[in-house]
């Protein structure tokens, strides 16, 4: 499978990365090169093989149902959470107007 400029533009928009024409054109052969190389995975017989999503067998833990069990990562830290926001207003993250 290979990608053309239009496909790359579509992927870029899905990934929310603005790309100009020059950048898109440059990206097409680079992505194709990589995709062509990963095609070799198709040679591998994977009949009956389960896809691996976790490398080390580990059971998912559940946390105690306690409010603010860890004061450093639980609630009540609004100012810390907002401290790095490019635009924080009235205790919230500020974003440009979404509804006209």
């Amino acid at each position, binding site marked *: *499978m290979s*990608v053309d400029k239009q*496909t*790359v533009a579509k*992927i*870029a*928009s*899905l*990934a*929310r*990365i*603005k*790309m100009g024409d020059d950048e898109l054109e440059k*990206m097409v052969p*680079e*992505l194709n*090169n*990589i*995709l062509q*190389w*990963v095609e*070799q*995975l*198709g*040679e*591998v017989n*994977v009949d009956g*093989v*389960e*896809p*691996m*999503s*976790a*490398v*080390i067998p*580990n059971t*998912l*833990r559940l*946390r105690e149902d306690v409010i603010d069990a*860890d004061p*450093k*990562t639980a609630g009540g*830290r609004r100012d*810390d*959470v907002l*401290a*790095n*926001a*490019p*635009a924080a207003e009235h205790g919230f*993250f500020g*974003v*440009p*107007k*979404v509804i006209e």
Partner: protein
Amino acid sequence: MTDLTSLGVKAIRDGVRSGDFTAREVAESFNDAVAGAAALNAFIVTTPDHALAAADAADKARADGKDLGPMAGVPIGMKDLFATHGVQTTAASHILEGFTPHYESTVSQKLWDAGAGMLGKLNLDQFAMGSSNETSFFGNVSSPWRKQGSNAAMSPGGSSGGSSSAVAARIAPAATGTDTGGSIRQPAAFAGISGIKPTYGRCSRWGVVAFASSLDQAGPMARSVEDCAIMLGAMAGFDPKDATSLEMDVPDWEAALSSDLKGKKVGIPKEYRMEGTDQAILDSWEQGKAWLKDAGAQIVDISLPHTKYALPAYYIIAPAEASSNLARYDGVRYGLRDLPEGAGLQDMYAATRAEGFGDEVKRRILIGTYVLSAGFYDAYYTQAQKVRTLVARDFENAWNECDVILAPTTPTASFPLGSLDADPLTMYLNDVFAVPASLAGLPAMSVPATMNEDGLPLGLQLVGKPFDEQTVLDAGLAIQQRSGFAHAPAKWW
């Protein structure tokens, strides 16, 4: 008095404990060395006050007759992928420039709790994506090594290249690294130092800027195997804040270190004999076998049949996870915001990410987005996950025949900065020997072995069973003792 910057973790810790010198003297020496090595560009920010404060605390604890922690008096470099409270944390990206966390990563907190201090935040490939340290927004890191008879700036490897450069240049006794597909081992090999990636889950990922969550794992980089064992002991341990953290005790690797390999079998995977590998690397591999045999081990030939497919599988899985992880950088909660005149929310996201991410990061996000998109998900992503199972199964089968695997760390020695950047794919191939162990989540280490004809260091890699860091460290120690590797770069900076 000895130049304190010539000392490693163990020598500093023991010297401070016995009162041969103070932790403050150590911190001052390294702070000066860091300040004098700007030409390496190894640090994004320096934190001399942090190092001094930790040193003073260690000196005071000693004066008060209190127990000193395992890293007390040791100032280290911290890869700028670890969130550090009140100190800028960027992942070497523009999008996080100026971000100062209000929290501390678990690994860095453990190191401070063990008595270490911080010399500064080390440069790296942007979001840990790269094998040469040429993708940082803050400029390339230079290796302290140079080819004989040349002044060309060489790559310190990546992504932990600031770490490898700083440790090799003796401006830090040790540094943290992170390894997603070889980012501790490859730069350690390029720089002639040691580095170990433990079993996935040993070190908490909490507070580490995420790249590919099923692969990322922190580890130490230092000048000796003993130093790695000490520092790994301080970094590892269960963390309830990381769902993938292992609920296991941390063994005392330092105390158990032994280079006696009697009764151990060392596997030599035939598939790692790849075309394009330097003859000097193959020679050092042969040398490594002889050393381990001398240490009492039995050498056995093994097969890891899916080795060839590990790298392409990695370059689907890692970008897929990256595209998801990096979705959080959108200009709303932290970091850069680019809000063009009259732009709406979606335009802001797209402009911010275009401005904030470097080319390699964009490339990987696009690949990840593509392989996860409808219509391609099964052909690429699911297939890669199945191949990952087969790569891991190869190792499981190998453990029936051997206890640890010996292989080269990289197919070549370091290369000049700029010599590979035109071709992303060639760059990726640098991690061909490192990636399989990452996909299987296994502990793996690089130790310096020999020098090539250009006067550049070459590393050997040891891969162990899950949770068996001890055998990896032991085999590393056996090589270290026999190689007697004591080469250091000539100071030019």
